[in-house]
């Protein structure tokens, strides 16, 4: 562990939190910042979870409730035709964030290099740095909708031990189609890279697309850690339940690390996750429909304002280019917040070279998004930049 480390990842994260704290002090802010779904957790999940914990229970074990691990395994078999052993291949964590941290501690020794598509969620950097590793950025670009390109990965694969792949992507919303995932997996397999596949947004895919799990690709089962959770799919961020799926040796190691650093997850939260998996899945379709509607609304608004963005194929973010306003992203976001009361996150909180980008989350009702677009329009007009009308 290198507790002295974490400078870059922590700085990037702090950019976001400092803006959120500023937003809390201002009236009538429309937050298009944090990735916390505004939709309600389905009431049936809450009811069933509370009913399940009534009465006497054993203290939960470190690896997670048997019934939850079985439900996770069932879900992968049902939806992806992937069979995992709930006894040996699944670990329940305090959200996907803890899963990420444990994974880095389990895989990365001091000096190891971890390949990460750039831009990226800065918590990856924090976890890598804490484990003593170094982040190796794999560039992605607007012209390819920020998809991780196998050719780019191939050029750097020899440098790394681990690849973190997030699909759909945070912050860009890029969604790599199944063949693209197979191509990336093939590069990883040839190079002997372990792939940490962050699939937390996999149920929120638009335009008829789908996400292929890296673990399902030829020859990748033993080289893949799947990282996911319940926060985004079921609007359950506050319950803090995630999970890791991986080979038995890895899961045993991650479980040892979890036992040392935090212990079991909350019983009620775990039963909420069980309820989410075992109950009706209709809310997922409804959430997807809502986010898709908002995505289209925001894309249309950005088009009217002449603000370029990459095509968001999944998740609930849009990665937009603000270069034509001639202002660094951090300053742009700070002024947008203080003057127009709209919170967005600057690109630099997802990698230091992204000074011309902002991440816009879609976690407000459509009417509020429309109001945010109006405020954004007035703000950029006041900046003096030429407005482009459709």
């Amino acid at each position, binding site marked *: 562990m290198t507790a002295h480390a974490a400078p870059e990842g922590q700085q990037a994260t702090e950019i976001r939190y400092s803006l959120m704290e500023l937003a809390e002090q201002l009236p009538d802010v429309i937050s298009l910042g944090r990735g916390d779904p505004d939709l309600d957790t389905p009431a049936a999940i809450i009811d069933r979870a509370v009913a399940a914990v009534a009465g006497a229970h054993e203290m939960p074990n470190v690896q997670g409730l048997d019934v939850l691990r079985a439900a996770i395994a069932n879900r992968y078999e049902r939806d992806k035709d992937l069979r995992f052993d709930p006894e040996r291949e699944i670990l329940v964590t305090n959200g996907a*964030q803890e899963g990420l941290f444990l994974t880095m501690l389990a895989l990365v020794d001091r000096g190891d290099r971890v390949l990460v598509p750039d831009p990226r969620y800065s918590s990856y950097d924090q976890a890598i740095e804490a484990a003593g590793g170094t982040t190796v950025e794999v560039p992605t670009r607007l012209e390819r909708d920020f998809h991780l390109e196998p050719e780019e990965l191939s050029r750097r694969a020899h440098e790394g031990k681990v690849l973190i792949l997030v699909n759909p992507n945070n912050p860009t919303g890029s969604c790599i189609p199944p063949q693209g995932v197979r191509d990336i997996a093939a590069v990883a397999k040839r190079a002997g890279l372990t792939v940490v596949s962050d699939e937390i947004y996999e149920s929120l895919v638009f335009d008829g697309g789908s996400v292929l799990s890296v673990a399902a690709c030829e020859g990748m089962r033993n080289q893949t850690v799947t990282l996911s959770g319940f926060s985004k799919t079921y609007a359950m961020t506050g319950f*803090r339940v995630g999970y890791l799926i991986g080979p038995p040796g890895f899961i045993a190691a991650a479980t040892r690390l979890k036992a040392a650093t935090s212990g079991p997850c909350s019983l009620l939260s775990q039963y909420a996750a069980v309820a989410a998996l075992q109950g009706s899945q209709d809310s997922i379709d409804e959430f997807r429909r809502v986010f898709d509607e908002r995505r289209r609304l925001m894309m249309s608004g950005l088009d009217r304002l002449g603000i370029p963005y990459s095509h968001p194929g999944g998740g609930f973010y849009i990665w937009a280019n603000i270069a034509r306003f001639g202002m660094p992203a951090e300053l742009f976001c700070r002024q947008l917040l203080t003057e127009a009361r709209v919170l967005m996150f600057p690109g630099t909180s997802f990698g230091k070279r992204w000074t011309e980008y902002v991440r816009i989350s879609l976690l407000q009702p459509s009417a509020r998004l429309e109001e945010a677009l109006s405020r954004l329009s007035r703000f950029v007009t006041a900046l003096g930049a030429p407005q482009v009308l459709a």
Partner: protein
Amino acid sequence: MMSTESSTIGRPMKLSARALALAPVSEAARSDKVTIAADVLKAVHDALIGGETHYTNRPGIPALRSRVADELQLLGGPAFDPNLGVVITAGVREALFVTMLGLRLLPGEVIVGGPDDGGEFADLFSLIGLRPVSLGDAPSSSADARLVYHEREQDDTATATLIATATGQGLPLVLNIRSSIGSDRAATLSALASHDQSMVVGDLDALPGIAAFRVGFVAGPAALVAGARLWKQAFSICTAAPSQRAALIALDRRRKEAR
């Protein structure tokens, strides 16, 4: 177990040295049954239906931080600032982990006062690469020592000596009171007043029905707790919202019963 596309399963994953060094998990300790009080459960249900299903503040919901600060003061401890000096965690282990990370301890550094074998938390100290030594074996200078650590279950007569050591060497003191809040065997924290670098970690497991919610805390001077706040966010963002609500309800009830 096979996937549909996998005709081969690939090469084995290479684990880190730290992961390989840890001992297998023993679940033998989880024998106690827990029962969550019906009124707590109803209040948690109402809070969830009312919308408390989102991330909370990173360091925890303000009312709970305030209650924890109050409880520590009732135990004779210093008046910690609930805004900047208290962080709610997922149990005492996470509290201790983020505290150690936040204090920027490095592999090889010594923590004075812990059991020689590290005791119950040996795996955590080992993970960070720290060397716990008993007071008698502690270095005479502060060159290698970075922290004084004390667990409440240890001989309480050692507390004054450990605080004197921490004060004398200018080291932070971390007192692990485990489940003292709500316990019949509550720790007395009055000795901490003499050392302004004192921190307290613990959990709320002794509150009836709360153990299964897995709530812990770090408390101390704002400057020392600042690092733990950041690492808590990095590690797990925040503690589960229903767990925090349940703990707050239990502490409120305890306060009412005490009146």
